[in-house]
């Protein structure tokens, strides 16, 4: 077990290095001078030169990369050109926002996806199964930025029930914070709910076919008990690990959702940064999300191994 984790961590090192190199070279590939973008309307040559010098843009590529990497290892991801703030501080500041959104989306997704998956597995082949499947597939197919627009149109513009946006930090006003996050979290959660529904359904189907469920049934246990106590517990193992994996995708999905609802989180930060050529921010965010994603993967795999003895023997 430990050797498995150690091996995975070792393999992750070159992966992270590749990502870091790739992410850093973006700055040299992207057209557009960050200093010009930063100077805006007031771009006299002296200011530009001073800024270039200040941010080390005049050093050779590898020197810049090395400096950036060693700083990053110490937790310093550089300085945002646009906001004049350390990137690490920005990320620490935005992380809770996107985290709240992602957690609320995950709650939505689990609350909708898992029961739907169970029902459709138990009633396999029924009209309910068909409807649930179709709804799930629709959830996967609907572009979430459109769903966001439609919801704003309906709920905010026509009905006036929920604010169209206006993020409030949870720490300042928890209730309002949750209120303003309901729509974005729902939008972000739909695709995930659909994925979870499908995973739950297939996991349930597999478990329902297994010997111990048959044994339980043969013992004359009531169907409800069989499903909830025996089948579900086992079926949830892969579902939970999948949720951990999908959490990474939530971060990517948050990009557009945050754009639509103007939530000042991670996703919005990265899009704005790409457009204003705020490289340090793009680099920092991609690096952090990628590392988080790799760790999530590792966590999911490890959890899966612990929870599933058969896998353990195989490894």
């Amino acid at each position: 077990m430990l050797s498995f984790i150690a091996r995975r961590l070792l393999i992750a090192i070159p992966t992270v290095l590749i990502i870091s190199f790739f992410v850093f070279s973006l700055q040299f590939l992207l057209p557009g001078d960050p200093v010009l973008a930063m100077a805006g309307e007031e771009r006299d040559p002296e200011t530009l030169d001073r800024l270039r010098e200040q941010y080390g843009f005049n050093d050779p590529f590898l020197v810049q990369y090395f400096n950036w990497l060693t700083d990053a290892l110490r937790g310093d991801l550089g300085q945002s050109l646009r906001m004049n703030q350390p990137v690490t501080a920005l990320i620490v500041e935005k992380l809770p926002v996107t985290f709240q959104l992602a957690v609320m989306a995950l709650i939505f997704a689990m609350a909708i996806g898992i029961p739907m998956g169970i029902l459709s597995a138990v009633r396999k082949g029924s009209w309910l199964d068909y409807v649930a499947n179709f709804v799930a597939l629709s959830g996967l197919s609907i572009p979430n930025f459109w769903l966001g627009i439609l919801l704003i149109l309906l709920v905010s513009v026509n009905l006036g029930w929920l604010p169209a946006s206006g993020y409030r930090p949870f720490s300042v006003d928890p209730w309002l914070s949750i209120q303003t996050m309901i729509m974005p979290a729902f939008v972000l959660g739909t695709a995930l709910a659909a994925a979870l529904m499908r995973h739950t359904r297939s996991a349930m189907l597999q478990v329902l076919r297994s010997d111990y469920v048959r044994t339980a049934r043969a013992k004359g246990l009531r169907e409800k008990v069989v499903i909830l106590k025996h089948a579900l517990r086992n079926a949830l193992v892969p579902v939970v690990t999948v949720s951990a994996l999908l959490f990474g995708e939530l971060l990517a999905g948050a990009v557009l959702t945050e754009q639509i609802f103007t939530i000042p989180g991670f996703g919005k930060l990265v899009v704005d940064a790409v457009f204003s050529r705020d490289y340090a921010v793009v680099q920092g965010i991609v690096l952090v999300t990628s590392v988080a994603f790799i760790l999530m993967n590792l966590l999911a795999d490890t959890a899966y191994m612990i929870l599933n003895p058969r896998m353990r023997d195989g490894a």
Partner: protein
Amino acid sequence: MKLKQTAALSALLAAMAGAGHAQELRIGLQDDADALDPDQSRTFVGRIVYTALCDKLIDITPDLEFIPQLATDWSWNDDETELTMQLREDVVFHDGTPFDAEAVVYNIDRSLNLPESRRSSEIASVEGAEVVDEHAVVITVSQTDATLLAQLADRAGMMISPAAAEEQGTDFGSNPVCSGPFSFVERVQQDRIELERFDDYWNGDDIHLDTVVFLPIPDTSVRLANLRSGDLDMIERLAATDFQTASNDDALRVEDVVALGYQGITMNVGNGERAEGPFGQETALRQALHLAIDREALNQVAFDGAFAPGNQPFPPDSPFYDDRFPVPERDPERARELLEEAGHGDGVTLEVQMANNPVQTQVMEIIQAMAAEVGIDVSLRATEFATMLDQQAAGNFEGSQVGWSGRVDPDGNIHQFLHCEGGLNDGGWCHERTDELLDGARTTNDVDARKDMYDEAREIFDAEQPIIYLYHPSWIWAMDAAIEGFVPNPDGMIRLEGVRYAAE
């Protein structure tokens, strides 16, 4: 019934607010401000925040006349090299430091010499400032500079506390100390900037608000939605297309004024290889494009008529606007003739780049359609703003649809774009006579003489069309109908003197 109750309740609340309860004004801005240091800052929204936070030596009326703020009076010596300013005597900074001639000298020096200063180029003509007595200074310039007063009426003229500046250095922006009507409380990046009433403000009688909160909300429709829901009290830059609906809403008050800036197509006539194309070389083609555009229709379709069609760097109501060249009617026949005469009767192509936001895209789509009708095939290249500036400076464009936020002094709208040595002359326009005229207008304080020089330059520019001006945006503010006393100003700032909630 329910509605009535709500109305009664809000009336009651408004009455309570008017009756001396804490008055808070929450203003939605289009962007987040950058560092709140007048010498380092570069954003437009930053200037809006300063209007509440930092007083300037001089202020500007909506008619663009200079009026006293921290300076009570000023005058030039005979050869226009020394500007003597008398200062207000009852002013203290937010940290209690008294405002005096020493402070002004310190501030001018900081604007000129702080390595991070963005103001040094704006007041490059200034050689130095000296104390005359406790409440008078003299500012020396190397040669007559017609733009200096306008600069002192903006960020270069904002006075910050020397004590605080010394203590904080370049970090001043995270805890600014000025002498304006409101003092800094706290800031959360991308979220809020909070100010509170400064009790020792020299003009405190005109200040009726207790706190002001600036909230950056980039999405225009979201800003409006927040205003409607009551989460904001006032927003700047309402979308032109929301102007009508907001005006019809009884709960809102909408104010607008034509801004100082312009939007136009900068033609590459002399910046690198891309200037070699037909539109860079042939005046007649630029003239044809100019005549192909129906500026009124453009304004109606893209902005519901809320902006002002334009054909010069100054808006039509500016005193420097040349009435001999009014905004032209669309003349497709003449445009087609010009193309024929130039030997492009069977069509000609032009590539124009613009920022990839929906509004600028729509503007160019409209122009594209209008140009197509006279035989000009305009292809569009939507580019992110950052790349666009880069391409523009590098000369990698034929036409570039770009705007300028505008300056109080006319020089700021024309010199740097159309002077051979202009810092923003990306189109590469270079003409001996227009250089003389633009330099001349910069180095005299005689308004009539300046106007004559700009007029003569206009004759050349109108024939040559190095920049095809399209329209002048309007500043549109929307606010809670209970707010009164707001006066729109073409500089787009929000002045809070006299602003209050109506007491019902």
